[in-house]
Protein backbone atom coordinates (compact mmCIF):
# COMPACT_ATOMS: atom_id res chain seq x y z
CA UNK A 1 0.00 0.00 0.00
CA UNK A 2 1.05 3.61 0.24
CA UNK A 3 3.03 3.23 3.45
CA UNK A 4 6.59 4.42 2.80
CA UNK A 5 9.28 1.83 3.40
CA UNK A 6 11.47 4.15 5.43
CA UNK A 7 13.96 2.62 7.83
CA UNK A 8 12.57 1.72 11.20
CA UNK A 9 14.49 1.99 14.43
CA UNK A 10 15.44 -1.35 15.97
CA UNK A 11 12.85 -2.25 18.56
CA UNK A 12 13.42 -1.86 22.26
CA UNK A 13 12.36 -4.95 24.20
CA UNK A 14 9.23 -3.17 25.46
CA UNK A 15 8.33 -2.03 21.97
CA UNK A 16 8.82 -5.51 20.56
CA UNK A 17 6.67 -7.01 23.31
CA UNK A 18 3.99 -4.40 22.73
CA UNK A 19 3.85 -5.16 19.02
CA UNK A 20 3.94 -8.91 19.52
CA UNK A 21 1.11 -8.76 21.99
CA UNK A 22 -0.87 -6.36 19.80
CA UNK A 23 -0.66 -8.74 16.85
CA UNK A 24 -1.41 -11.82 18.92
CA UNK A 25 -4.40 -10.29 20.64
CA UNK A 26 -5.80 -7.95 18.00
CA UNK A 27 -4.39 -9.25 14.71
CA UNK A 28 -7.48 -11.23 13.83
CA UNK A 29 -9.94 -8.44 14.63
CA UNK A 30 -7.81 -5.91 12.74
CA UNK A 31 -7.44 -8.17 9.74
CA UNK A 32 -11.19 -8.86 9.61
CA UNK A 33 -11.94 -5.16 9.91
CA UNK A 34 -9.55 -4.45 7.03
CA UNK A 35 -11.08 -7.28 5.03
CA UNK A 36 -14.59 -5.89 5.49
CA UNK A 37 -13.44 -2.49 4.30
CA UNK A 38 -11.42 -3.59 1.30
CA UNK A 39 -13.43 -6.67 0.33
CA UNK A 40 -10.37 -8.67 -0.64
CA UNK A 41 -7.66 -10.56 1.21
CA UNK A 42 -4.59 -9.16 -0.53
CA UNK A 43 -5.46 -5.55 0.28
CA UNK A 44 -6.61 -6.54 3.77
CA UNK A 45 -3.19 -8.12 4.39
CA UNK A 46 -1.40 -4.98 3.18
CA UNK A 47 -3.64 -2.70 5.22
CA UNK A 48 -3.17 -4.80 8.36
CA UNK A 49 0.57 -4.92 7.83
CA UNK A 50 0.79 -1.13 7.42
CA UNK A 51 -1.41 -0.64 10.47
CA UNK A 52 0.83 -2.73 12.71
CA UNK A 53 3.94 -0.97 11.42
CA UNK A 54 2.26 2.27 12.50
CA UNK A 55 1.44 0.74 15.86
CA UNK A 56 5.10 -0.12 16.16
CA UNK A 57 6.21 3.39 15.25
CA UNK A 58 3.67 5.16 17.43
CA UNK A 59 3.43 2.70 20.30
CA UNK A 60 4.25 5.33 22.91
CA UNK A 61 1.33 7.47 21.82
CA UNK A 62 -1.12 4.76 22.82
CA UNK A 63 -2.78 5.79 26.08
CA UNK A 64 -2.91 2.95 28.59
CA UNK A 65 -6.42 2.33 29.82
CA UNK A 66 -8.02 3.27 26.50
CA UNK A 67 -9.27 0.82 23.90
CA UNK A 68 -6.47 -0.55 21.76
CA UNK A 69 -9.01 -1.82 19.25
CA UNK A 70 -10.46 1.68 18.76
CA UNK A 71 -6.94 2.99 18.32
CA UNK A 72 -5.93 0.50 15.66
CA UNK A 73 -9.31 0.77 13.91
CA UNK A 74 -8.63 4.47 13.67
CA UNK A 75 -5.24 3.74 12.13
CA UNK A 76 -6.79 1.27 9.66
CA UNK A 77 -9.53 3.77 8.84
CA UNK A 78 -6.98 6.47 8.04
CA UNK A 79 -4.84 4.13 5.94
CA UNK A 80 -7.92 2.90 4.10
CA UNK A 81 -9.03 6.45 3.36
CA UNK A 82 -5.55 7.43 2.12
CA UNK A 83 -5.41 4.39 -0.08
CA UNK A 84 -8.87 4.99 -1.51
CA UNK A 85 -7.86 8.55 -2.32
CA UNK A 86 -4.64 7.35 -3.90
CA UNK A 87 -6.48 4.86 -6.07
CA UNK A 88 -9.18 7.40 -6.92
CA UNK A 89 -11.78 4.75 -6.66
CA UNK A 90 -12.36 1.55 -4.91
CA UNK A 91 -10.70 -1.67 -3.94
CA UNK A 92 -11.01 -4.70 -6.14
CA UNK A 93 -13.76 -6.79 -4.62
CA UNK A 94 -13.47 -10.53 -4.66
CA UNK A 95 -17.22 -10.89 -5.02
CA UNK A 96 -18.92 -10.80 -8.44
CA UNK A 97 -19.87 -7.50 -10.04
CA UNK A 98 -23.49 -8.42 -10.55
CA UNK A 99 -25.51 -6.93 -7.72
CA UNK A 100 -28.90 -8.28 -8.73
CA UNK A 101 -30.32 -10.22 -5.83
CA UNK A 102 -31.05 -13.30 -7.92
CA UNK A 103 -30.38 -15.72 -5.13
CA UNK A 104 -33.51 -15.01 -3.18
CA UNK A 105 -35.71 -18.06 -3.27
CA UNK A 106 -37.33 -18.09 0.17
CA UNK A 107 -41.04 -18.40 0.72
CA UNK A 108 -41.87 -15.95 3.49
CA UNK A 109 -42.22 -12.19 3.29
CA UNK A 110 -39.25 -10.53 4.91
CA UNK A 111 -40.99 -8.12 7.26
CA UNK A 112 -42.71 -10.83 9.27
CA UNK A 113 -39.91 -13.38 9.05
CA UNK A 114 -38.14 -14.21 12.28
CA UNK A 115 -34.41 -13.68 12.10
CA UNK A 116 -33.27 -17.18 11.35
CA UNK A 117 -31.78 -19.25 8.59
CA UNK A 118 -33.28 -16.85 6.10
CA UNK A 119 -30.78 -14.29 7.23
CA UNK A 120 -27.90 -16.71 6.97
CA UNK A 121 -28.71 -18.32 3.67
CA UNK A 122 -30.66 -15.77 1.68
CA UNK A 123 -29.45 -12.39 2.78
CA UNK A 124 -25.75 -12.76 3.45
CA UNK A 125 -24.50 -12.91 -0.09
CA UNK A 126 -26.62 -10.11 -1.56
CA UNK A 127 -25.71 -7.97 1.44
CA UNK A 128 -22.02 -8.54 0.87
CA UNK A 129 -22.54 -7.40 -2.68
CA UNK A 130 -24.51 -4.39 -1.51
CA UNK A 131 -21.74 -3.45 0.91
CA UNK A 132 -19.39 -3.38 -2.04
CA UNK A 133 -21.60 -0.73 -3.64
CA UNK A 134 -21.32 1.69 -0.74
CA UNK A 135 -18.83 4.53 -0.77
CA UNK A 136 -15.74 4.12 1.40
CA UNK A 137 -17.14 6.38 4.11
CA UNK A 138 -20.54 4.71 4.12
CA UNK A 139 -18.95 1.31 4.27
CA UNK A 140 -16.80 2.24 7.24
CA UNK A 141 -19.82 3.52 9.13
CA UNK A 142 -21.88 0.40 8.41
CA UNK A 143 -19.04 -1.92 9.41
CA UNK A 144 -18.39 0.01 12.62
CA UNK A 145 -22.06 0.48 13.58
CA UNK A 146 -23.65 -2.77 12.47
CA UNK A 147 -20.85 -5.32 12.56
CA UNK A 148 -18.48 -3.97 15.20
CA UNK A 149 -21.38 -2.50 17.23
CA UNK A 150 -19.73 0.80 18.10
CA UNK A 151 -21.85 3.75 19.23
CA UNK A 152 -22.14 6.81 17.01
CA UNK A 153 -19.87 8.67 19.44
CA UNK A 154 -17.18 5.97 19.23
CA UNK A 155 -17.44 5.87 15.44
CA UNK A 156 -17.05 9.64 15.28
CA UNK A 157 -13.86 9.33 17.33
CA UNK A 158 -12.50 6.50 15.18
CA UNK A 159 -13.34 8.24 11.90
CA UNK A 160 -12.43 11.71 13.09
CA UNK A 161 -15.76 13.29 12.18
CA UNK A 162 -18.85 14.60 13.95
CA UNK A 163 -21.68 12.44 15.29
CA UNK A 164 -23.97 14.21 12.83
CA UNK A 165 -21.79 13.05 9.95
CA UNK A 166 -21.80 9.49 11.27
CA UNK A 167 -25.58 9.63 11.55
CA UNK A 168 -26.17 10.96 8.05
CA UNK A 169 -23.67 8.54 6.45
CA UNK A 170 -25.30 5.63 8.22
CA UNK A 171 -28.78 6.78 7.20
CA UNK A 172 -27.74 7.03 3.54
CA UNK A 173 -25.93 3.69 3.61
CA UNK A 174 -28.84 1.94 5.27
CA UNK A 175 -31.29 3.43 2.75
CA UNK A 176 -29.20 1.89 -0.02
CA UNK A 177 -29.05 -1.49 1.69
CA UNK A 178 -32.77 -1.31 2.45
CA UNK A 179 -33.61 -0.75 -1.20
CA UNK A 180 -31.69 -3.88 -2.10
CA UNK A 181 -33.49 -5.96 0.49
CA UNK A 182 -36.85 -4.57 -0.58
CA UNK A 183 -36.05 -5.43 -4.18
CA UNK A 184 -35.20 -8.94 -3.08
CA UNK A 185 -38.42 -9.12 -1.11
CA UNK A 186 -40.43 -8.02 -4.15
CA UNK A 187 -38.80 -10.76 -6.23
CA UNK A 188 -39.71 -13.28 -3.59
CA UNK A 189 -43.35 -12.36 -3.61
CA UNK A 190 -43.61 -12.60 -7.36
Amino acid at each position, binding site marked *: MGEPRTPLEPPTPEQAAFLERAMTQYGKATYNFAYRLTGNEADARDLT*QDAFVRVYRAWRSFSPGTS*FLSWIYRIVTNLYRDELRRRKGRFQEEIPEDNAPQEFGGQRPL*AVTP*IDDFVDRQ*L*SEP*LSKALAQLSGDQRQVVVLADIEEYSYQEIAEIMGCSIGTVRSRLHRA*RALLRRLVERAQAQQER
Partner: protein
Amino acid sequence: MNDHLSNDLLVDFVHRELSPADDAMAHAHLAGCVACREAYELEATLTEALRSAAKADEREFPSLVSAAVWDRIRHAEPGPFAKLAAWLRPAYALPVAAAVLIGGFFVSPLAHPAAHPTIAASYYLEAHAAQSAITPLSERSSSPALETSMIAPGSPRGQDDGAAAGAVDVVR
Protein backbone atom coordinates in the same frame (compact mmCIF):
# COMPACT_ATOMS: atom_id res chain seq x y z
CA MET B 1 -49.90 9.83 17.19
CA ASN B 2 -50.60 10.20 13.48
CA ASP B 3 -47.16 10.52 11.90
CA HIS B 4 -45.33 7.31 11.16
CA LEU B 5 -41.73 6.84 12.25
CA SER B 6 -39.19 7.71 9.57
CA ASN B 7 -36.66 5.14 8.39
CA ASP B 8 -33.83 7.31 9.68
CA LEU B 9 -35.42 7.42 13.13
CA LEU B 10 -35.83 3.64 13.03
CA VAL B 11 -32.14 3.24 12.12
CA ASP B 12 -31.22 5.30 15.19
CA PHE B 13 -33.71 3.29 17.25
CA VAL B 14 -32.16 -0.02 16.16
CA HIS B 15 -28.73 1.34 17.10
CA ARG B 16 -30.04 2.65 20.46
CA GLU B 17 -29.02 6.17 19.57
CA LEU B 18 -32.26 8.02 20.31
CA SER B 19 -32.68 10.31 23.28
CA PRO B 20 -34.65 8.70 26.14
CA ALA B 21 -37.73 10.74 25.20
CA ASP B 22 -37.58 9.82 21.50
CA ASP B 23 -36.84 6.21 22.39
CA ALA B 24 -39.94 6.03 24.59
CA MET B 25 -42.01 7.70 21.87
CA ALA B 26 -40.78 5.19 19.27
CA HIS B 27 -41.53 2.28 21.61
CA ALA B 28 -45.06 3.50 22.18
CA HIS B 29 -45.67 4.06 18.48
CA LEU B 30 -44.33 0.64 17.48
CA ALA B 31 -46.63 -1.02 19.99
CA GLY B 32 -49.65 0.30 18.16
CA CYS B 33 -48.62 0.60 14.50
CA VAL B 34 -48.25 -2.47 12.30
CA ALA B 35 -46.71 -0.59 9.37
CA CYS B 36 -43.95 0.92 11.49
CA ARG B 37 -43.38 -2.38 13.22
CA GLU B 38 -42.78 -4.01 9.83
CA ALA B 39 -40.38 -1.23 8.88
CA TYR B 40 -38.61 -1.73 12.19
CA GLU B 41 -38.39 -5.50 11.60
CA LEU B 42 -36.75 -4.80 8.26
CA GLU B 43 -34.13 -2.56 9.87
CA ALA B 44 -33.46 -5.06 12.63
CA THR B 45 -33.19 -7.90 10.10
CA LEU B 46 -30.76 -5.86 8.04
CA THR B 47 -28.47 -5.34 11.03
CA GLU B 48 -28.74 -8.99 12.02
CA ALA B 49 -27.95 -10.04 8.45
CA LEU B 50 -24.87 -7.82 8.27
CA ARG B 51 -23.59 -9.22 11.54
CA SER B 52 -24.34 -12.76 10.55
CA ALA B 53 -22.71 -12.39 7.12
CA ALA B 54 -19.57 -10.96 8.74
CA LYS B 55 -19.44 -13.77 11.26
CA ALA B 56 -19.85 -16.42 8.58
CA ASP B 57 -17.03 -14.83 6.59
CA GLU B 58 -14.62 -14.35 9.49
CA ARG B 59 -10.96 -15.00 8.73
CA GLU B 60 -7.93 -15.98 10.73
CA PHE B 61 -5.05 -13.54 11.08
CA PRO B 62 -2.55 -14.61 8.39
CA SER B 63 0.80 -15.46 9.99
CA LEU B 64 2.30 -14.06 6.79
CA VAL B 65 1.24 -10.59 7.94
CA SER B 66 3.03 -10.69 11.29
CA ALA B 67 6.10 -12.19 9.62
CA ALA B 68 6.06 -9.35 7.08
CA VAL B 69 5.68 -6.73 9.83
CA TRP B 70 8.71 -8.10 11.69
CA ASP B 71 10.53 -8.31 8.41
CA ARG B 72 9.92 -4.62 7.72
CA ILE B 73 11.05 -3.69 11.18
CA ARG B 74 14.31 -5.60 10.82
CA HIS B 75 15.11 -4.31 7.37
CA ALA B 76 14.70 -0.91 5.83
CA GLU B 77 14.07 -2.59 2.53
CA PRO B 78 11.20 -5.04 2.12
CA GLY B 79 12.60 -8.40 3.15
CA PRO B 80 11.83 -11.87 1.93
CA PHE B 81 8.43 -12.09 3.63
CA ALA B 82 7.26 -8.74 2.33
CA LYS B 83 8.51 -9.69 -1.13
CA LEU B 84 6.79 -13.05 -0.92
CA ALA B 85 3.61 -11.37 0.25
CA ALA B 86 3.81 -9.03 -2.72
CA TRP B 87 4.54 -11.91 -5.03
CA LEU B 88 1.54 -13.79 -3.68
CA ARG B 89 -0.81 -10.88 -4.27
CA PRO B 90 -2.08 -11.81 -7.74
CA ALA B 91 -2.55 -15.39 -6.67
CA TYR B 92 -4.72 -14.36 -3.71
CA ALA B 93 -2.85 -16.50 -1.26
CA LEU B 94 -2.74 -19.95 -2.72
CA PRO B 95 -3.17 -22.24 0.25
CA VAL B 96 -0.31 -24.48 -0.80
CA ALA B 97 2.10 -21.57 -1.21
CA ALA B 98 1.05 -20.22 2.16
CA ALA B 99 1.56 -23.59 3.80
CA VAL B 100 5.04 -23.89 2.30
CA LEU B 101 5.82 -20.35 3.41
CA ILE B 102 4.63 -20.88 6.96
CA GLY B 103 6.54 -24.15 7.13
CA GLY B 104 9.61 -22.32 5.89
CA PHE B 105 9.17 -19.66 8.53
CA PHE B 106 9.19 -22.14 11.35
CA VAL B 107 12.45 -23.76 10.26
CA SER B 108 14.06 -20.41 9.47
CA PRO B 109 16.27 -18.60 12.00
CA LEU B 110 13.49 -15.99 12.31
CA ALA B 111 11.44 -18.44 14.27
CA HIS B 112 14.18 -18.92 16.84
CA PRO B 113 13.47 -17.18 20.12
CA ALA B 114 16.96 -15.72 20.15
CA ALA B 115 16.38 -13.99 16.82
CA HIS B 116 12.94 -12.75 17.84
CA PRO B 117 12.95 -9.44 19.67
CA THR B 118 11.42 -10.46 22.93
CA ILE B 119 11.07 -9.28 26.47
CA ALA B 120 10.64 -11.51 29.46
CA ALA B 121 6.93 -12.19 29.43
CA SER B 122 6.80 -12.07 33.19
CA TYR B 123 8.11 -8.51 33.23
CA TYR B 124 5.60 -7.43 30.67
CA LEU B 125 2.65 -9.04 32.37
CA GLU B 126 3.70 -7.70 35.75
CA ALA B 127 3.93 -4.22 34.33
CA HIS B 128 0.54 -4.76 32.77
CA ALA B 129 -0.98 -6.03 36.01
CA ALA B 130 0.45 -3.10 37.93
CA GLN B 131 -0.96 -0.65 35.42
CA SER B 132 -4.28 -2.46 35.35
CA ALA B 133 -4.64 -1.97 39.06
CA ILE B 134 -4.72 1.78 38.60
CA THR B 135 -6.24 1.91 35.15
CA PRO B 136 -9.68 0.39 34.61
CA LEU B 137 -9.79 -1.90 31.61
CA SER B 138 -11.78 -0.24 28.96
CA GLU B 139 -11.85 -2.49 25.92
CA ARG B 140 -15.41 -2.42 24.78
CA SER B 141 -15.45 -5.62 22.74
CA SER B 142 -17.60 -8.46 23.95
CA SER B 143 -14.95 -10.99 23.01
CA PRO B 144 -13.14 -12.19 26.13
CA ALA B 145 -9.84 -12.26 24.24
CA LEU B 146 -10.19 -8.57 23.62
CA GLU B 147 -11.28 -7.60 27.11
CA THR B 148 -7.81 -6.55 28.19
CA SER B 149 -6.66 -3.15 27.14
CA MET B 150 -3.12 -2.75 25.92
CA ILE B 151 -0.78 -1.19 28.39
CA ALA B 152 2.47 0.33 27.29
CA PRO B 153 4.98 -0.93 29.82
CA GLY B 154 7.84 1.05 31.24
CA SER B 155 6.43 4.39 30.28
CA PRO B 156 5.30 6.79 32.98
CA ARG B 157 1.72 7.95 32.62
CA GLY B 158 2.64 11.57 32.29
CA GLN B 159 4.85 10.78 29.36
CA ASP B 160 2.14 8.80 27.65
CA ASP B 161 -0.42 11.47 28.20
CA GLY B 162 1.92 13.98 26.67
CA ALA B 163 2.58 11.69 23.75
CA ALA B 164 -1.14 11.06 23.33
CA ALA B 165 -1.67 14.73 22.62
CA GLY B 166 0.50 14.27 19.55
CA ALA B 167 -1.03 10.90 18.70
CA VAL B 168 -3.03 12.24 15.81
CA ASP B 169 0.09 13.43 14.04
CA VAL B 170 1.79 10.10 14.42
CA VAL B 171 -1.22 8.06 13.55
CA ARG B 172 -2.41 9.98 10.56
